[in-house]
C-alpha cells in the first residue's frame, strides 16, 4: 500500500541505558514507515521494539542517530515543539489504556483536540462523538473513563488517538491486555483504518496479529533483522 513517501524515518538510531550498567538496546536501527502503510514490529521481549517506538514517538529524546517526521528532522528539537508534533501528527495507543479517570469518556477523547485548538469545542465534540461511534462506544460517551470495560477503554483510546487526524497511529501492544474477542474488535478497527489510508505502526509480539498486517518488521537484539518488505 506504500506510495513511496516516508512519514517517519529513523536513521542509525542507537540507544543505551546507563542504569544499572551500560547496555545498548538499539544498535543502529534504520526504519521507514510509508504513508498509508499498516506495519507491525515483531520481536522477542527485550529486543528493543518498545524502546524504538518511544523514540519514534518523540517522547524519548535520549538517543543517537537521526529521526525525521513527515520530512522534518526532529532530532534535537525543543520539547515544546515535540509536544506540538505529538499533538498534531502522532496518535498513540498503549497496552494499558491510559485514560484519565477523572474525565468522561468523551472528554478524554476531546482533550488532545482541545489542546490543538484548531477547532472550537463544539466541533471537537462532534468529531469525538463520530470517532466514538465508529469504535462502537458512543453509548458510553458520558460515563467516567474508569466505569467502562477494558475492551471499551482501548477503543476509546483509539478514538482519542485519532481525534487530530494524525499522520501515523503508533500502538504499543494494543491488544496485549485484551481477551481474544476484544483483540479481534480492535484489530478490525485497525484494519478499517488502514483501509481508509491511515498509516499505522504497531508493536506487538502477537504473531496472529502481526501476520494480518501489511508488513512485519522483525527485530532481534537491538537490530532490525527483517524490514519485511513484500
Amino acid at each position, binding site marked *: 500500500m506504500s506510495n513511496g513517501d516516508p512519514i517517519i524515518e529513523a536513521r542509525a538510531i542507537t540507544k543505551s541505558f546507563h542504569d544499572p550498567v551500560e547496555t545498548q538496546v538499539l544498535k543502529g536501527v534504520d526504519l521507514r514507515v510509508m504513508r498509508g502503510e499498516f506495519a507491525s514490529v515483531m520481536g522477542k521481549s527485550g529486543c528493543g521494539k518498545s524502546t524504538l517506538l*518511544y523514540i519514534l*514517538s518523540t517522547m524519548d529524546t535520549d538517543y543517537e542517530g537521526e529521526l525525521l517526521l513527515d520530512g522534518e528532522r526532529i532530532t534535537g528539537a525543543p520539547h515544546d515543539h515535540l*509536544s506540538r508534533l505529538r499533538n498534531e501528527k502522532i496518535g498513540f495507543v498503549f497496552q494499558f489504556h*491510559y485514560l484519565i479517570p477523572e*474525565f468522561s469518556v468523551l472528554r478524554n477523547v476531546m482533550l488532545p483536540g482541545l*489542546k490543538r485548538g484548531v477547532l472550537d469545542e463544539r466541533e471537537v465534540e462532534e468529531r469525538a462523538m463520530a470517532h466514538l461511534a465508529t469504535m462502537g462506544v458512543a453509548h458510553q460517551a458520558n460515563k467516567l473513563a474508569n466505569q467502562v470495560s477494558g475492551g471499551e477503554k482501548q477503543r476509546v483510546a483509539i478514538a482519542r488517538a485519532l481525534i487530530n487526524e494524525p499522520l501515523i497511529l503508533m500502538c504499543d501492544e494494543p491488544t496485549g491486555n485484551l481477551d481474544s474477542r476484544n483483540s479481534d474488535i480492535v484489530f478490525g478497527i485497525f484494519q478499517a483504518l488502514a483501509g481508509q489510508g491511515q498509516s499505522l505502526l504497531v508493536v506487538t509480539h502477537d504473531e496472529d496479529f502481526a501476520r494480518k498486517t501489511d508488513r512485519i518488521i522483525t527485530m532481534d537484539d537491538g537490530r532490525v533483522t527483517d524490514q519485511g518488505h513484500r
Partner: protein
Amino acid sequence: MNRLLLSISATLLRARMRQSVVAAVGVAMSIGMYIALSGFMNGLNGLLDGLILNRTPHIRIYNEIQPAEQQPLELQRLIQRTAGDDLAHPFINRIKPKSDQLAVRNALGIIDALRKDPRVDGIAPKVNAQVFFNAGTIEVNGAVNGIDALEEDRLLHFSEYLIGCTVTDLAASANGVVLGKGLADKMLVGLGDAVQVSTIAGDRFTLKVIGFYQSGMADFDNVTCFVTLATAQNLLAKPRSWITDIQVRLKDLAMAPAMAKEYARRFDVEALDIQTANAQFETGSSVRSLISYVVSVVLLLVAGFGIYNILNMMIYEKLDSIAILKATGFSGGDVRVIFINLSMIIGAFGAAGGLLLGGLLAVGIDRIPFHFDALPTMTTYPVDHNLKYYLIGVAFALVTTFIAGLFPARKASRVDPVEIIRGK
C-alpha cells in the same frame, strides 16, 4: 487554551474534593486568623498609642523656671580674671528665679501668632496650679488644670476620660470641678458635693464636683482635677493673660520636633515635642505588629505545607494521567500550569473563606465586652476594621499557595512519560 488547562485543573480538583476542601480550609483559617489578629492587634495598638498620643499635645509651650544661666557671681569672677585681681569683690550670689515667670510671657500674643500658622491644627491653652483640698482635717495635695474644655476635647480627646458629665457641662460651669477618680475616692466626695480648695497663696475657694476624670494612671488620677481656664485664673488671682501651657496640635505629627525648636527660638519659650516626650511608644507598637505578622506567617506556612503535601500526593497518584497528557501533546509547561492552577484554585477559595472568617471573627471580637480603666467610655475590645488587612491577607494567601504549588508543579512538568508508560 488556558481555559482548557483550567478546566483540567478543576476536574482533577473535583475528583479530590475532600482533600482540596481540607487544604482550602487550612488557608482560610490562617487568613482568617491573620485578619482577625491584625485587626485586633492594631485596634489595641491604636488604643494604646492613642492613650499617649491623645493625651500629649504635639508641642507643649511653657516657661520652665530655671536659674539664670550666668549667675552674677560667675560674671564677677570672669571680670576678675580678665581685669586683674584688684577689681571689685563679689556682692550678689545665687539669684533665685522669680515666681511670676511661671506663666508663658505674652501668652495671648503667642496664641494669636500660632492661630495664623497654617501648620497648626489647634491650640488649647492651660493653667496649671498647685492647690490643697481640704478633706476634713487633712489637706490633700492636688493639681488644678484650668482648661478650655471644648478645645481640650477636640485636640486631646478629653471627653473619653470623663465620667458623669460632658465637656460642655465643664465649659459652662463657673465654679464646677472635675475631680480625678482617685482624688474623689480619697476625699469621699460624690457628684454635686462641694470641695474646699486652698491655693498656695492661702486663698480659699469652694468648688462643686460636676464630674470625674479617669485616665487609668493612678498617680495622675489621685492628684488631678480640672476646672475652666477662667476659674483657674480666679483661684490664682491672675489676669486672663496668665497661661502656663500652650498645647499645640499639628496637622502633621512628624513636624513636631522641628517646629518645637522653631517656636522655642521665635517666642523665647520652652517647647517640648511629642517625640521627645514619648520616645518609647513607637517601639511598642512596631513590636506588636511584628508579632501579629510572625503569627500569621507561621499559620500561612502551615497552610502552605498542607497544600504542598496534597499536591505532591496528587501528582504521585496522577503520574499516569500526567504521562498521557504529555504523550498526547501537552507540554511540560502545560502540566506545570495545570498543577499551579490546582494550587491557586485552593488558594483562591481559601482566601475567600478566610475573608469571611476573618470578617466574622473581627466583628465577633469587636462585640466582646471589655472594660479598660484608662478609657471609661470604651465597652468592647477595640478592633481596627481596616480594608488593608483583608487585602494583605488575600495577597498573602495567593502568594503562599502559588509557591506551595510551584515545586510540585515543576516536579509534575518533569515527569518522563516514557518512564511511566514503560514501567507499568
